[in-house]
């Protein structure tokens, strides 16, 4: 293969959920696509993710992207590989202050076209009898769902391949070059490049700052019916979007298998992939405070992952500053699965010179060049 040149309309680098979505979208529009992935498809942050499709409303730009993307996730609702489960999201309020704040969030979500409503304590316990007594109520987002991200990414890559996409599996891009990319086996790919390598972005695009924000997850054996909705504390956004070096939040998900997935933790300074007993303890104690029955359940596995995080928390979606025919889609932090499909449509619109359905300006990588 050494020295071979192959030419494409788009070379997608990285087959996580973002790269896979972009390759899927581009090939569906008839583009000749290459996708390069050195590891398993969906094997990075995609594999570590919870797969919760959720609209976060604290940043209008994130909400717009999420709303746009959630609409397209509906096309996956009946796909076996997606393991799509419409469990809804139930945000839990510990006290009347949090419940009052929930009303504000409902208004924001409704304004964005997301169905959501405040529930009182009686309804809360009807919905989730395992919650600890004494909670004030909650915020129910009934149409939200969970998926199994690595299988979705696999499906997207397969579908892209069925539309002619060339998968360079086990291959790494050594460098971006004018009009293409150089692979580690000597192959040169020519065409516009889209870098979707998440936390690994700085290796190819060092001018775009990116940090890995470590998270832990624990999954249990099967306990069907114990938890029915994706449960989060209303204070979650403080952990997710705060700047604290480490934080935990109550975030528990019923998998379609009956297993329970327990999160979440966030750490900026941790670079070691090993599970940290102290963080696991903090995270689990937080979950027990909301669902005491969790204590007795059998954990099958603990893992960690790194969320690709930009300085302002918004993804980079657009042209690489100062380069021609180089594009970037990366840095979705904890919302990459939710926003993957919308990000892909927006990206391919930009690459094809079309007007995207939502305003792309907030995600433009140009903001880092300023």
């Amino acid at each position: 293969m050494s020295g071979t040149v192959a030419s494409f309309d788009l070379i997608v680098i990285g087959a996580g959920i973002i790269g896979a979505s972009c390759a899927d979208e581009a090939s569906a529009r008839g583009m000749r696509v290459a996708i390069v992935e050195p590891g398993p498809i969906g094997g990075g942050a995609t594999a570590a993710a919870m797969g919760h499709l959720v609209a976060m409303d604290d940043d209008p730009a994130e909400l717009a992207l999420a709303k746009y993307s959630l609409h397209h996730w509906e096309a996956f609702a009946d796909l076996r590989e997606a393991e799509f489960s419409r469990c809804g999201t139930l945000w839990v309020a510990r006290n009347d202050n949090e419940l009052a704040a929930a009303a504000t969030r409902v208004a924001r979500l409704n304004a964005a076209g997301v169905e959501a409503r405040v529930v009182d304590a009686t309804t809360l316990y009807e919905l989730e009898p395992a919650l600890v007594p004494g909670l004030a109520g909650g915020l129910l987002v009934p149409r939200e769902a969970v998926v199994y991200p690595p299988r979705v990414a696999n499906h997207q890559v397969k579908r892209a391949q069925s539309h002619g996409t060339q998968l360079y599996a086990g291959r790494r891009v050594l460098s971006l070059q004018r009009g293409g990319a150089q692979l580690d086996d000597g192959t040169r790919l020519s065409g516009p490049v889209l870098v979707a390598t998440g936390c690994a972005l700085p290796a190819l695009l060092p001018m775009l700052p990116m940090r890995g924000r470590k998270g832990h997850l624990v999954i249990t054996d099967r306990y069907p019916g114990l938890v029915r909705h994706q449960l989060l504390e209303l204070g979650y956004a403080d952990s997710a979007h705060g700047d604290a070096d480490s934080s935990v939040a109550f975030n528990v998900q019923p998998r379609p298998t009956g297993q329970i997935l327990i999160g979440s933790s966030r750490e900026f300074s941790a670079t070691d992939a090993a599970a940290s007993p102290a963080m696991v303890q903090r995270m689990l104690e937080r979950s027990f405070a909301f669902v005491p029955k969790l204590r007795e359940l059998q954990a099958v596995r603990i893992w960690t992952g790194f969320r690709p995080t930009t300085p302002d928390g918004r993804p980079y979606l657009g042209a690489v500053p100062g380069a021609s025919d180089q594009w970037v889609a990366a840095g979705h932090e904890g919302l990459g699965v939710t926003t993957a499909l919308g990000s892909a449509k927006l990206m391919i619109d930009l690459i094809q010179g079309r007007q995207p359905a939502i305003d792309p300006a907030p995600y433009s990588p140009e903001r880092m060049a300023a």
Partner: protein
Amino acid sequence: MPDRYDVLVVGAGPAGLAAAQTAAAHGARVGLLDAQPRPGGQVWRHDVRHQAPRAAREAIAKLQGVDVLASHSVVAVESSALRVETAEGGRLISYGSLILATGARELLLPFPGWTLPGITGAGGLQALTKQGWPVAGKRVVIAGSGPLLLAAADTLRKHGAQVLGIYEQAPAASVHAFARQLRHWPARALQAIGLRVRLAGVPYRFGSFVRRAQGSDSVQRVDIDTPTGTQTVECDLLAVGYGLVPNTELAQLLGCAMDYLGPHPHVGVDRLLRTSMGGVYAAGEAGGIGGLAVARLEGAMAAHIATGHSVAAHALAPQRDRERRFGALLARHFALDPRLHALGDDSTMVCRCEDVTLGDLNGFTDARAAKLATRCGMGACQGRICGTALAELGRFPRSGARPPIFPARLATLAGLTTLPSDDAYRGS
């Protein structure tokens, strides 16, 4: 009981018992952990109906000064400490030195019908029988490979089972060559002769293996490939095991380097049983399948070293080396027939926790990619059965160890020391 020991021994089989006893004799404060409710490990497992062998009784009786921490399951590794789980709750036990005597498990290979109730490992049925599993009057086929098949048959007969036959996959010439070598190990020769006498009348067939099992609710008949053709045998129980593989999960989580002889890892140790991690030693099967005598010698050696008595450890090394050669002899003469790698077809289950078939894994060359796409190895056994089988079959190596070492209560992982009993999950 204290939560810190000078020497903490994991595994109360022959290696761990010898290690604990030796370390205690040197005056160390010793803890001996085992997930099982009684010491003895697998080979000296407590039998509810029959007395244990004398060596086992003596080894267990000599544990003065040792804290025997039975029903203690190691779930995670912390800094110079192990997080363990008991029925009552979790504990963090710290150590000065750690001796891994985690033993081995059976190699179990997929074949059509192997998920039927009534089909167990060979050592598996032996263990269950000692636990009181009803085998009296049952027609049992024993198959697989290695001397464990004879030991299992012996236990089953003692408990009243009707052993229809022992089917050894190794060819007759290989087993006979092995038997001739036994003259160099007189104690083992005597043991073997004793077994053969007690098993008089039980057919022992070579070059034979179970190709398929059938039954409705549980196993009813098995097809056995023999050098003279296929025979079908009606039975109530099938016990089939293809030898042993070391338990290395704890060592891997500690960061100890692994060595490989074939497709399965064992803990890498130097001549004095030091692993690549300071203060961590491995004795017995964990460091490579060697058998009972190796286990007892290495347990003592590891304890000598861990307590600073290197002269005593060096003194045992030549004997240990000699016994290790017996393990190598076993591996050579009972090497698995490549046909055993092809028993399963595309519809044969390989991951029994998540019901993934061999066919589901076609095209995958990497355990992690296969796991993400098919759930293979994601279940409660954490890939101990399927991952080991797939490595043996040459598909791909098992993926690396992740905590917890065994499924554990969330409370244990959260460091809670006790559990409120009224919060138990009552099913759906």
